[in-house]
């Protein structure tokens, strides 16, 4: 009986508890009713390399949200981490990031794998014409566009006018042969004649292509490697001579910060690299030689002028469930207004839009002692529109590029002759390509 009574009391408590819960639920209804509006608010995620451009975007995310109602989060990271994470996120189709940076040398692989959403349904074709041909080329397959470029890094040279003039060069040398002669003439123990960064597979092609060579026979159609061709061996010899004889100590292994510091400190007279790096040599906070610096085109070779262009874009992740919102973000991030703002406020000279590069305020900001830097950059972008940068976006390029760096470093350090070093690279690259099913023609 007592048991029954306890059960009864318990039931009553249960009833009261249930009633209280129902009351609480009823009270919470207005709050729950608001939930769909909160759930309806779209949040997208984007990942890219740490860069002043991304800093500019981050500062303006509130403006983007106000305009579109879309909340965006940007994760910035270094290139080694971005490379790993992008591959992992895209290959597993996680869809965690809606927008990713289309990394130039990985674009071929990612597009081939179908990880980037074709952007044609979203595109405004009139606006597309504002992007330089060379900047769009890596992300175009036929008529399909897979990414919109926000950064185009063009190889140029920055040099010390006073040192070159003293050596008898009122203008920087126009050919690589002349550069070699000049280096021998102006090199001193205190001031190296030449400096560049250690990403040698990005710098050496300036020489290689100007002498008629290429990494492959006819990229992207014929990927038979041509690393031991007479042109490759000759230019490897020329380039590594500059690194070993006329550069600061450790010339083949200086990263861009050290190369820039060499120019800042007056330890080097001539710096060849992407504009994104070279433009910093006139930072008056870091150097007393800024007013003696000037900029110019990279030299040419017997077959012409082949400045290099590395382009990075924004893609929509195929695995994203918020593609419309992702496109709204890309449209805003690469739009004229944002790019202009980043050029003026963040020193972003490596712009991809002609309208921004020709904007009077941009011209004014980036004209240095009479040199029109935006025009210099645009010339390279137009030149690269010819399609000669195709070698860098073939899916197999990243490990091949790494192998070329090993070969050039070995040659520069005297561990191998140019012929031996490039032959060994050719052998390894052939094996690598065969493993990937590429037919190699002799």
């Amino acid at each position: 009986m007592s048991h029954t009574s306890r059960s009864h009391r318990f039931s009553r408590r249960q009833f009261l508890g249930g009633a209280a819960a129902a009351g609480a639920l009823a009270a919470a209804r207005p709050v729950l009713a608001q939930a769909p509006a909160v759930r309806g608010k779209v949040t997208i995620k984007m990942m890219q390399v740490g860069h002043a451009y991304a800093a500019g975007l981050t500062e303006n995310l509130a403006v983007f949200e106000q305009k579109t109602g879309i909340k965006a989060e940007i994760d910035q990271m270094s290139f080694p981490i971005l490379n790993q994470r992008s591959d992992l996120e895209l290959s597993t189709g996680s869809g965690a990031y809606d927008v990713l940076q289309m990394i130039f040398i990985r674009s071929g692989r990612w597009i081939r794998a179908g990880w980037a959403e074709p952007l044609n349904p979203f595109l405004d074709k009139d606006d597309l014409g504002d992007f330089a041909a060379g900047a769009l080329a890596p992300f175009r397959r036929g008529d399909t566009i897979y990414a919109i470029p926000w950064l185009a890094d063009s190889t140029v040279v920055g040099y010390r006018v006073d040192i070159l003039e003293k050596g008898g060069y009122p203008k920087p040398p126009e050919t690589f042969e002349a550069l070699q002669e000049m280096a021998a003439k102006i090199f001193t123990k205190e001031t190296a004649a030449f400096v560049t960064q250690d990403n040698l597979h990005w710098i050496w092609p300036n020489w290689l292509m100007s002498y008629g060579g290429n990494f492959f026979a006819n990229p992207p159609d014929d990927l038979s490697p041509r690393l031991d061709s007479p042109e490759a061996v000759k230019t490897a010899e020329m380039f590594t001579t500059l690194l070993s004889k006329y550069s600061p100590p450790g010339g083949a292994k200086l990263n861009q910060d050290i190369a820039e510091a060499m120019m800042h400190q007056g330890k080097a007279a001539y710096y060849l690299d992407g504009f994104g790096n070279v433009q910093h040599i006139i930072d008056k906070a870091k150097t007393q030689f800024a007013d003696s610096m000037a900029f110019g085109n990279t030299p040419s070779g017997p077959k012409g002028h082949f400045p290099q262009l590395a382009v990075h874009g924004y893609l929509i992740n195929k695995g994203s469930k918020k593609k419309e919102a992702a496109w709204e973000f890309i449209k805003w991030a690469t739009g004229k207004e944002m790019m202009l703002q980043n050029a003026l406020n963040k020193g972003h000279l490596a712009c991809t839009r002609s309208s921004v590069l020709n904007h009077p305020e941009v011209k004014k900001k980036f004209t240095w002692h009479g040199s029109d830097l935006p025009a210099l950059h645009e010339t390279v972008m137009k030149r690269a529109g010819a399609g000669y940068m195709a070698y860098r976006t073939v899916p197999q390029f990243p490990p091949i590029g790494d192998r070329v760096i090993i070969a050039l470093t070995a040659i520069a350090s005297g561990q191998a002759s140019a012929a031996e070093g490039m032959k060994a690279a050719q052998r390894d690259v052939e094996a690598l390509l065969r493993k990937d099913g590429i037919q190699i023609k002799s």
Partner: protein
Amino acid sequence: MSSRSLARMIRRGAALAVVALLLLVVLFPVLWLVLMSVRTEAESFRMPPQLFFTPTAKNYLDLMQSKFFRAFENSVVTSTATTVLSLLLGVPAAYALGRAQLRPERLLSLWVLATRMAPPIAFGIPFFLIYIRLDLIDTRLGLVLIYLSFNLSLVIWMMRAFFEGLPASLEEAAYIDGAGVVGAFVRVTLPLSAPGLATTAIFCFLLSWNDFFYSLILTRSEAVTAPVAIVNFMDYERWEYGKITAAASLIMLPVVAFSLAVRKYLIRGLTAGAVKG
């Protein structure tokens, strides 16, 4: 002073000089790192390097404005939690394996090592995919679980050796005095294996603290740990050497502090069993 004591003093002085020189050689990279962290960038790149300079706290102040301290906190939390959990779970397991008269004991111990039989990269993608399904990506809990998986084998193998080195008769004496298995383990065995526990704890902490790979693969922005955060100071256009060196100097501090706190046990733990007698 006799010639004999003079000779002894010279020998001692020479020995100290050699030790000091060796210390300088061994610690030079650390010293250079710390010096770079209190120099301006221009000073860091000056050729030839200047021995005397005005130190600056700018790099540390800049670091405070960045997200590094969130990553540092993640490292402290995940490494400490992993160390505590590894010891809590691994030490009793090691004791059981060391004392139990089980026929498949060797086989069991071998399988405990399974997570260390392949390089981490082999487990990277499977873990990533499982973590996505379990919603553990970019969480501290996810990192702790993964660190636990490879730290447990270390704890079990290291502590089993310590327990096997302790005479079982001590526990048998405790049983006679009325203690149970757990009581004998907690009151007799554990206090005697303090050096082993300290050594194992340090190795556990270090393995988690220095992990780069799993933090790279299994985090995105919220649970990123300090080693990955440091690499993120390498921007596209420039490497932030000031922040990199300041962060690297800070990242050494907890390990140094922890090692100093338990160094007495650490040395005893490392040399335990080296001499029998």
